[in-house]
């Protein structure tokens, strides 16, 4: 090791430690990225990222009833029924969210972007059957896209599914289990 190399090493370590400490100290002055869901959520700060793949929802105002989503789904989450005849009606549009793996293939297949991911994720329940979301309340006419026209603006993303699940997730957070059977009765039974 030559002399110049020796002093170069000292200079390098001093400068790099100095700069590194400046970097870490600058992080002390920043807000942490952590979101303390669910009980310390700051208002006005989005909980999820913009392209978050949350629960699927379908906007029946612009759904063409083409069944592309049902065909492309690898695990059969989506169940669509369209009545045959001269007047076509969508009679059923169910999404079984308990099976869904949020791959987003249906969203890509949809020609009118009727089916889409939302930012919602808090919808846990005690009953798995409640995880099936029925979107069709009464039969609707499928949307017919007009050529070379602007596609109609659908409902805002997340508004439909938010109405359906309500504050289900929050309810589950505050869920208190039913009281256990009375201990005295139990011991009486066992002894008798």
């Amino acid at each position, binding site marked *: 090791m030559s002399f110049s190399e020796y002093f170069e090493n000292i200079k390098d370590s001093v400068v790099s430690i100095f700069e590194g400490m400046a970097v870490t100290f600058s992080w002390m002055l*920043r807000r942490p990225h952590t979101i303390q869901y669910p009980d310390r959520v700051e208002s006005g700060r989005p909980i999820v990222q913009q392209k978050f793949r949350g629960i699927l929802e379908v906007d029946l105002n612009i759904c063409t009833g083409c069944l592309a989503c049902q065909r492309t789904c690898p695990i059969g989450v989506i169940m669509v029924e369209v009545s045959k005849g001269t007047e076509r009606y969508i009679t059923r549009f169910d999404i079984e969210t308990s099976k869904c793996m949020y791959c987003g293939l249906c969203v890509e297949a949809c020609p009118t972007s009727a089916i889409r991911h939302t930012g919602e994720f808090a919808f846990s329940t005690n009953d798995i059957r409640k995880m099936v979301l029925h979107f069709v309340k009464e039969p609707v006419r499928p949307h017919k896209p007009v050529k070379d026209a602007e596609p109609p603006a659908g409902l805002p993303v997340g508004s439909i599914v938010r109405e359906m699940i309500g504050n289900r997730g929050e309810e589950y957070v505050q869920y208190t289990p039913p009281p256990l059977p009375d201990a005295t009765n139990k011991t009486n039974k066992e002894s008798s």
Partner: protein
Amino acid sequence: MLELSDKILESFGLSSQYSLVVIIILFFVYGLFALTFGSLFAGITSWYERRIAGRMQSRIGPNRVGYQGFWQWLADGLKCWFKEDIIPKDTDSVLFRIAPYLVFTGVLCTFVVIPFAPSVVGSDMNVGLVYIIAITALVVAGILMAGWASDSKWTLFGGIRSTAQMISYEIPVALSLIVVVIPAGTLSLQKIIISQGGAPYNWYIFHNPAAFVAFFIYFTSALAEGNRTPFDLPEAESELVAGYNTEYSGMRFLFFLFAEWMNLYVIGGIATAVFLGGWRIPGIAYEVQMESIWLQFAGFIVYLIKALILVNVIIWLRWTLPRLRIDQLMIMCYKYLVPISILLIIVSIIFTILYESVPVVGLVVRLLLFLLGVVIMIYFSYRVYYNIRNFPDKTYLKWMI
């Protein structure tokens, strides 16, 4: 302590034959005080360090137990208290049991000479610095014992690494302290503090260029001696599975951690006493400070603040620098720190002789070095500002979360 016991004997009107009893009681009280102070410091630092670590990594850290998670350290202590104390089957059980207490004692014993306030000190030994360097050898013995007795490969590696590292780094620690001992002319920590002034440019860190460099050498090698990152090879979590304390659990494990965090205060305390003016308050003479009890208390606070700032720097370094390799560690000690500190001793001798013959030079050099320190601080704040400004994510100043 002796003067205090004489005062107590006088005030109670007892004859001098009771002096031994009074001294023993006084030492016991002081020991309890040091133990309480050290343990509380270690506990609170464990919470504080995790909070700082969180913020530096853009996380939050423990914030659930009490206000801002302050009682986290008590919760962790209780958890460890109730844990099962496992002693593996093939261990050397006596050594296994003694080792944590040896480490703890080794660190706690340094509190004997570390002053808290002008007259609150366990024993103002005339060989204080030598005592500190000698008594910390107990830590080496304890860690090696723990490594050997656990009957595990990882712990043995950790113990041997630790011994090599701590014995090596005692040399630069001692040598860099000598740089200050030369102008001070004493090894007693209290006398070193007294011989410094209150104002920053009278501190020994700005005494001469050699002392300025020696402060950083002392700080680095004290970190290495205390097994702190970036020199935490003995307990490298990612390589050695926590090294010498792998097999420990419950309170025995906690004693190692107590020793580690108390050692932070010891490093900060010695650096404060030797380099940063200790409990001296600017503009107040030493004799005046000794008389008034309020000035004594103010001195305690000043000392604590200086030591805590250094503790902050140690924690901050831990989350900045990566761990060194063992050969890099040894190269750094024997090729860089030891030769440089020997050179610094010679420079310090020259400057001390120069100051005695031409006192004006002393004042000029001190003021220039103080200015250098201020310039470094200003440049550092500029770099922090630069880092914040040039980050794409817009920043927010938010202290508590």
